[in-house]
């Protein structure tokens, strides 16, 4: 029974996806919603159950193996929860939009693949679903419009390249471990093991959207349909990437805090936090600003898991869950604003507090949550991460704290500009969104509060079992144990608030509150380069490839010239000279013949 349910987690969305592609357009959304609902119910049924399934697939030791246990069950539940909310939201949001034709099909396909990847107990099975997601990412971005095609290609190449690294890592892991069943792999970090570890980590953090594999996310935020952003980069990819990262560091490889790779992981996390949040601070577009936060928050998770301390790991996983909740909520508010106001450009928004009060309320809760304001959920997970980071090194704690400051600053700016400032555009008739779009946002906002106030439920019931015995004697739930850290956090948030109000007062508008950072002497140049995409590995790669192509084309042209022009002219020139030499006087021929004969005879005698 349980096996059938587990398989149906993959099959039901798959079949529903096939059906939506042939249904009339207006029924497609309903079909997707029903499939997501069934999926959610199954996930609830399967929660806290354990089972495995394996049957032969390709041969040569490659089997189709699935495993359900507390961690994968928890992730499945979260995934199905978000997919349910987003399919409900999309029903209204995508109504009468051209991208609705294909969105639901890809959406369900992605759901099926994510379920498969989470449940996979065999590295090749995992890779199969993991690469399938690549397809759906491409499809979901590409349906966004004419401009989206380029962004889709960009994301395809970046994610595809990191997936290739992961594929190499899987091959190497299988070679070292002599098995591909994930459950049975327990490797040390020797030289070859470290290489396999790094390759797998690249796959995982690239999926999560960490730097330097992040550059497609801000582009996709502008081009792709919004539910994709709320579903994929905000929720699903974080869940999947961090889930896999945790499994790599905890189960497959024994990463401990004495290993230098742990420091590398923490450094990647810290750098991602700082750089992405600095970029987020100066954005002038609602969705683009959120997308940089989607990158920045991954940094906290990687930092937490990289500490290799129980508090950090639990904090990282909890933050993953919290981030999915509030980031999904934030993107949904962005979608609502886009739908109702017709734009997400902060220069044209303003004064939405009065016209869209429910949206404003949801934004307020989720923004407070991401900034780490107590008692919302973000506060508790961040405190756990701070705790672990401080234990591993002050510099990481400091980076996380600065990140927190700028996160708060940028959301103050966003909220101020979009909801509180005077309307910059004379646009009457902005109304609150319909109910089916408000319900998901409200549920998410309430979840933020719920996970904050009753954080014992997610931490003790969902997350702590993942660590097993290592954390049995500790209690991570409840109010943070270290009062000084809490005070410091609150002080930082207060500083951000004071900074914002002071700056907004001087500049006269909330939107320009961060301009003095944007135009600071050194930073302004860096920002300008970043806007020109000088730091984007993909754009640099494209430039390099173009340059090489130009060079090769030049070489090719010169070869063409050599063959088509030079050799022909040279051959014809020689030919004409030879032809002139044959003037027709036999005496010349006789002279040639005699000279030749002389030479030949001399040679023969020698």
């Amino acid at each position, binding site marked *: 029974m349980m096996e059938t349910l587990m398989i149906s987690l993959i099959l039901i969305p798959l079949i529903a996806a096939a059906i939506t592609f042939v249904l009339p357009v207006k029924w497609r959304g309903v079909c997707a919603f029903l499939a997501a609902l069934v999926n959610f119910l199954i996930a609830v049924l399967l929660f806290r159950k354990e089972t495995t399934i394996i049957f032969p697939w390709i041969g040569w030791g490659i089997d189709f193996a699935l495993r359900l246990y507390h961690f994968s069950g928890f992730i499945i539940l979260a995934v199905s929860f978000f997919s349910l909310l987003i399919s409900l939201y999309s029903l209204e949001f995508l109504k009468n939009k051209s991208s609705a034709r294909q969105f639901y099909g890809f959406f369900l396909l992605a759901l099926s693949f994510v379920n498969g990847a989470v449940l996979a107990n065999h590295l090749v099975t995992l890779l199969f679903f993991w690469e399938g997601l690549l397809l759906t990412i491409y499809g979901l971005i590409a349906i966004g419009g004419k401009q989206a095609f380029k962004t889709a290609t960009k994301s395809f190449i970046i994610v595809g390249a990191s997936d290739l690294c992961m594929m190499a890592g899987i091959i190497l892991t299988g070679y070292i471990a002599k098995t591909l069943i994930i459950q049975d792999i327990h490797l040390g970090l020797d030289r070859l093991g470290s290489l396999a570890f790094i390759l797998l980590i690249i796959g995982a953090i690239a999926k999560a959207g960490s730097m330097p594999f992040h550059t497609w996310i801000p582009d996709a935020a502008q081009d792709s349909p919004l539910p994709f952003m709320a579903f994929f980069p905000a929720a699903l990819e974080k869940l999947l990437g961090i889930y896999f990262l945790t499994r790599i560091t905890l189960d497959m490889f024994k990463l401990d805090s004495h290993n230098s790779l742990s420091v590398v992981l923490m450094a990647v996390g810290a750098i991602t936090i700082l750089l992405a949040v600095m970029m987020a601070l100066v954005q002038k577009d609602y969705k683009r600003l959120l997308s940089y936060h989607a990158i920045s928050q991954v940094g906290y998770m990687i930092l937490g898991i990289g500490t290799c301390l129980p508090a950090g790991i639990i904090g990282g996983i909890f933050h993953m869950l919290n981030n999915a909740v509030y980031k999904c909520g934030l993107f949904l508010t962005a979608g609502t604003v886009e739908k109702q106001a017709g734009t997400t450009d902060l220069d044209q928004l303003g004064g939405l507090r009065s016209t869209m009060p429910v949206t404003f309320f949801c934004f307020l809760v989720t923004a407070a949550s991401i900034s780490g304001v107590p008692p919302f959920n973000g506060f508790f997970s961040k405190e756990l991460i701070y705790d672990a980071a401080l234990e591993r090194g002050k510099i990481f704690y400091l980076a996380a704290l600065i990140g927190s400051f700028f996160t708060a600053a940028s959301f103050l700016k966003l909220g101020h500009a979009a909801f509180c400032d005077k309307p910059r555009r004379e646009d009457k008739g902005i109304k609150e969104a319909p109910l089916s779009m408000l319900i998901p946002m409200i549920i998410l906002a309430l979840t933020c509060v719920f996970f904050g106030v009753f954080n014992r439920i997610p931490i003790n019931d969902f997350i702590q079992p993942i660590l097993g015995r290592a954390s049995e004697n500790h209690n991570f739930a409840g109010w943070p144990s270290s009062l000084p850290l809490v005070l410091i956090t609150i002080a930082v948030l207060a500083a951000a608030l004071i900074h914002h109000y002071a700056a907004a007062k001087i500049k006269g508008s909330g939107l320009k509150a961060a301009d003095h950072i944007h135009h600071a002497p050194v930073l302004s140049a860096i920002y300008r380069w970043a806007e020109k995409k000088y730091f984007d590995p993909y754009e640099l790669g494209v430039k390099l490839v173009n340059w090489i192509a130009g060079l090769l084309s030049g070489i090719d042209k010169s070869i063409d010239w050599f063959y088509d022009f030079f050799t022909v002219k040279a051959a014809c020139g020689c030919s004409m000279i030879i032809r002139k030499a044959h003037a027709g006087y*036999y005496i010349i021929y006789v002279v040639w013949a005699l000279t030749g004969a002389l030479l030949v005879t001399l040679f023969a005698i020698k």
Partner: protein
Amino acid sequence: MTSLFIFAPFFLLVIINFPLGFLKGRCAFCLAASLLLAQVLLAAFHPWLFWSAYPDCLRQFFGFPLAVDNLALIMLFVIGIVALVSLLTAQDTLAGEKQKFNFINLLLVALIGMNATVLVTDIFSLYVFIEVTAMASFILIALEKGKFAIEGAFKYLMLSAIASVFMLTSVAFLLLTAGDISFAAVHHVLTNVPGSFFLKLAVGLFLCGLLIKSGVVPFHGWLPDAYSAAPSCVSVLLAGTVTKISGVYILLRLFSSVFTLTPALQNVLLFAGAISIVFAALAALTQDDFKRMLAYSSISQVGYIILALGCGTPLAFVGAVFHFFNHAIFKTLLFVNAASLEKRFGTTDINQLEGLGEKCPVTSVTSLVAMLSTAGIPPLSGFWSKLIIVMALFSKGRFIYAGTALIASIITLAYFLSLERRIFFNKGKPAPAAGGTATQISRGLNPAKNFSGIACAEILLAVFTIAGGLGYAFMLNTWFLPLKAIWH
């Protein structure tokens, strides 16, 4: 009954010259054709009974012995085929019964000379029959008594005379030093007394004479004039056999089993061959006359044979003979194509011939086959012989010469394909408006003429080229690979 190859043409020559009117026309042609056909069949199937009939009573009329081996059989076959084709072409192209009859007489004389050249076993007789062949061919070139024809014949005569002087001097030296001039004796002396100055000089002089006869660069001056000025049917005969037998074949024969191929001589041959290939191929690129281009192409292809001979391995020798055979077939075919065009349109100037692909499909297709074979495109026969030559050069370590041979193939392809495009593939100019000067081409074919003989010859040779390419393994195993035994 080997001597029949010399006696039969001789008797036929006597018979058709009896003062009986009915023998002169159609009858003479039929007799000569059946004689040539018999030669082809005997050489191709070499029935054991015929060759071993003993005693060969007729042989006793000669003062010199004859011998036949695989190489001689191949040569007899080639001579028969090319002479037959030439005869067929002559029937369609020569004007007037008297000229046709003269042609048959001279063809028979040349046939006697060539057959004997192939069969004799001493150097002096060899010289004599080279001269017999040459005499016949001088007159053949000047058969139509045109200005250019006589000029061509004269140039050939002058350079042939020089070659004769060289060869005769060489024969004298050999006679003086060796005391005997049979192949075996000369070979014996040359291997036992390798250092003798006079022997070396004799070999060098003979080589010079033969290089003139083969038309290798820089001894080639006579060849383009003679080939292009001669009547088409004579060009066929000259290009396919006369110059090849009296030059190239003798080089192959002498350097395979009589003279020793010293490293110095190898270098001379390799160098002369490579120069011929490149030089003549370049010269062919800008020729305006079809037959002249073919003449240069002929020099270039002879270069391959000389190159292979200079390589000095049994495999290269096999390649040389194979290429000799292939070249005789496809170059003859090309000259027949040229004869066909000349007779139909009155010119072989490439600039005037245009868009003829639809007007003469047989000529168009067969010439394409022959040209591709010349350039060495698989699977046509020319490819396999060139492949063997290049392989032999490579295995001997002559990489530069092998590379030259390969690159020259591209030039060959270049000039032939541009020729094909201009003559056959082009759409041709629209017919000139009334009052304009209508060329013979725009007037179209002459329907009164019958070209069945030429078409027959073209198809026959094209089939040979294709079949030789597809069945190269059979040809190589039964005909050419046994030649390795002849090599020293």
